């Protein structure tokens, strides 16, 4: 059944991998921020999922790190055009966090400490596509990169991977977030180069 294409396999393993259109490769990890960097001590950190029916599910830091975690190695693509390959993270899958959440929602609005928001369809948070990440490259995630914990949803442009994540509001209607209300694309698929509204 499986048709193996040697050309495809070689390309995947070669160092000059294919990047999404318009992207260039970077080795460092640029820090982008739309405001002052929040410093949230883990003993005061919490993560809340709110449903469209008004129910709340909250995890403390201790509860989060006791959940089964995964190691993720993934490419990331920033809308400012840099891509970074094979970044290494550790975090809890949203499949785990949303397992016992009853909802009919189709959309999610991510909230961060510091006030940042970003929106995406709920289905993009499920099926092994998104994590609450708290380790990067075998170290605790630094505040500059969104620590103590950030959303990691690497199949979309990286502005969707909200730093300093504090919760998810589940919604029946789409509600655009911080950049999505200021000209950026509502969905942000790097492979379809959905940078701006209308792309």
């Amino acid at each position, binding site marked *: 059944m499986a048709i193996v294409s040697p050309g495809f396999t070689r390309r995947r393993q070669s160092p000059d991998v294919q990047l999404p259109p318009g992207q260039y490769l970077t080795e460092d990890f*640029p820090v982008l921020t*739309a*405001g002052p960097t929040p410093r949230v001590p883990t003993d005061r950190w919490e993560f809340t999922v709110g449903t469209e029916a008004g129910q709340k599910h909250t995890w403390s830091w201790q509860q989060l790190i006791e959940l089964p975690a995964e190691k993720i190695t993934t490419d990331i693509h920033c809308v400012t055009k840099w891509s970074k390959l094979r970044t290494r993270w550790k975090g809890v899958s949203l499949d785990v966090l949303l397992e016992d959440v009853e909802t009919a929602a189709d959309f999610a609005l991510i909230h961060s400490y510091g006030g940042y928001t970003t929106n995406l369809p709920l289905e993009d948070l499920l099926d092994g596509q998104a994590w609450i990440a708290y380790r990067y490259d075998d170290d605790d995630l630094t505040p500059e990169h969104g620590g103590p914990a950030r959303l990691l949803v690497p199949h979309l442009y990286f502005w969707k991977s909200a730093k300093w994540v504090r919760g998810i509001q589940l919604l029946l209607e789409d509600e655009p977030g911080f950049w999505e209300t200021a000209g950026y694309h509502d969905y942000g698929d790097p492979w379809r180069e959905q940078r701006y509204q209308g792309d």
Partner: protein
Amino acid sequence: MSHVDGNSLAGDLREIFAVDLTVATGQCAGCGYKGSVATLRVYQNAPGIVARCPHCEEVVLRLVRGRDRAWLDLRGTVSLEIPLES
């Protein structure tokens, strides 16, 4: 006839946006602070330009540049007072 279409703004807006807006006085929608645009805290290492109130740190202005257009979002600003030549 109660209103006319936006084309009638052309002359007025050209005058407004041709001036140096950094000397304008803006009022923050978050806390009411009034100060010149030049005193805002501007974050540029981001997908767009984000200007925050120096008093409450709320976002007062966002400017995103696309390939062939720009988006200016002023929902955090109550008003801009712009000095003009008399």
